[in-house]
């Protein structure tokens, strides 16, 4: 999932200066799972904003809405009849949803209510960790399904650096050395010969080196 963190309300508040009506807009996908921008968080942010506006003596109507997805025009269209009632939108979707909402409603100011962090998974309740950087050319078949691009601090593709010690990264004892994880995994799979195989210098043009990316599937295009 795309993992996000809620922004502090003090950061959001100045953007809403002068607004008489604000829509807090959640998303029912990734940000709901990582508890940053689902229906529950929409309710929490809306209540906090109402309190702060009341404290400032401002009469601001704070609306709440959570769409199935903000990265899909079909669901964004559900706002068409109501969005004009609001001066501003605070979107709790990931950066994709925030931008897509703004693109769909060009005359409406849309502000981010979260910081979008990475693609990751829940290690336990309340702890999410990065697993994928969307580099566009997956190497997991060669590395025992442990990603050195996302999990090695230096994105090394051919074994650990000199900073790896007792299975930990030079960044500190709380960071696993990705290459230790890869070696452990290859051993468990009986595939240590893969460790000896050199991975060629990475083609970063599939990543961001070629500018903003797009996937086009002619077979499913309408």
């Amino acid at each position: 999932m795309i993992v996000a963190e809620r922004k502090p309300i003090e950061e959001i508040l100045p953007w809403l200066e002068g607004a008489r009506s604000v829509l807090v807009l959640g998303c029912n996908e990734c940000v709901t799972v990582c508890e940053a921008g689902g229906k529950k968080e929409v309710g929490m942010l809306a209540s906090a904003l109402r309190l702060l506006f009341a404290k400032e003596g401002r009469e601001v109507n704070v609306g709440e809405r959570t769409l199935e997805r903000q990265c899909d025009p079909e669901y964004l269209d559900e706002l068409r009849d109501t969005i004009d009632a609001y001066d501003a939108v605070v979107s709790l979707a990931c950066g994709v949803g925030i931008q897509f909402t703004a693109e769909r409603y060009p005359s409406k100011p849309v502000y981010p209510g979260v910081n979008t962090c990475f693609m990751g998974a829940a290690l336990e309740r309340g702890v999410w960790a990065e697993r994928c950087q969307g580099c566009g050319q997956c190497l997991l078949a060669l590395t025992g399904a442990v990603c050195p691009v996302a999990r090695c601090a230096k994105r090394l593709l051919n074994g650990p650096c000199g900073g790896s010690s007792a299975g930990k990264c030079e960044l500190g004892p709380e960071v696993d050395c990705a290459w230790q994880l890869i070696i452990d995994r290859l051993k468990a799979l009986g595939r240590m010969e893969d460790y000896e195989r050199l991975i060629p210098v990475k083609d970063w043009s599939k990543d961001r080196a070629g500018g903003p990316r797009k996937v086009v599937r002619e077979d499913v295009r309408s």
Partner: protein
Amino acid sequence: MSLKEKLAAGEFVLLAELEPPKGVHVAPMLDHARRLKERVEAFLVPEMHQAVMRMSALGAAFLLRQEGMEPVMQVCCRDRNRLALQGDLLAAFACGIENLLVVSGEDPSLGDHHRARAVYDLSALELLEAIGGLERGRDLAGVDLEGAPRFFTGATTQAGSPGRSAELEAEDIAQRMRAGARFFLTPPIFDPELLEPVVRRLDQGRQALVPTVLLLKSLGMARYIERNVPHIRIPPETIERLQRAPDKVRECVQIAVEGIRALRSRGYPAVAVATLGWEDKLPEIVEAL
């Protein structure tokens, strides 16, 4: 007199672009420089122009400096993070390189290493501010330096490019000037009139602008630029003139000479000549001026 002093004294300054070699044979580059030494005030050394891997500008600028010539070293945001940029700037100053040209750098996808990962840790504006910091004796982490460099720094502008807003270009120049840039290199200019909307909006008029004159190599190149390079405009008269010319190369040199003369007569303090590998034509150009 240094480049900075010559510009301050109001002397017309000619800069020549010299590409570092793709390899370690530096003799041709140095030979070109020696031939031009008396007629050109400084040499502009690009940093892997168009993202094509070559000897670094730092190395080539240092070699020119050793020969007693004055280089303007390009510093490019594409390939180095803030540590490497600052470290190389200190090295450059210690090697006698005092003139800089800050550029963003073209995306690696346009060059010969299109699989490379670009850096862009700092933008050109942030790099200008970082250079200012080094000059004040502090690095970007706020740590004091043991001895501060002193540079004469320029930046690029898109002034004269068709399709760019003159207001935004003038604002951009003003912003970069506040960040420490003292001169602004334009894209290749074939019609000086195109610079006027920006010049009119600048407090210092044309005094901070250094227009580039690009030596065309053929009619095909001129047509290609006109069709495919949106930030360079070649007037139809120039293309027609090349079409009619019996000796195209000679005509290309003549067009460059006339371009420099036209810009000098309009009062620009300096002009940079870019030859894209035809450095051997530079003596002919400068002698005809």
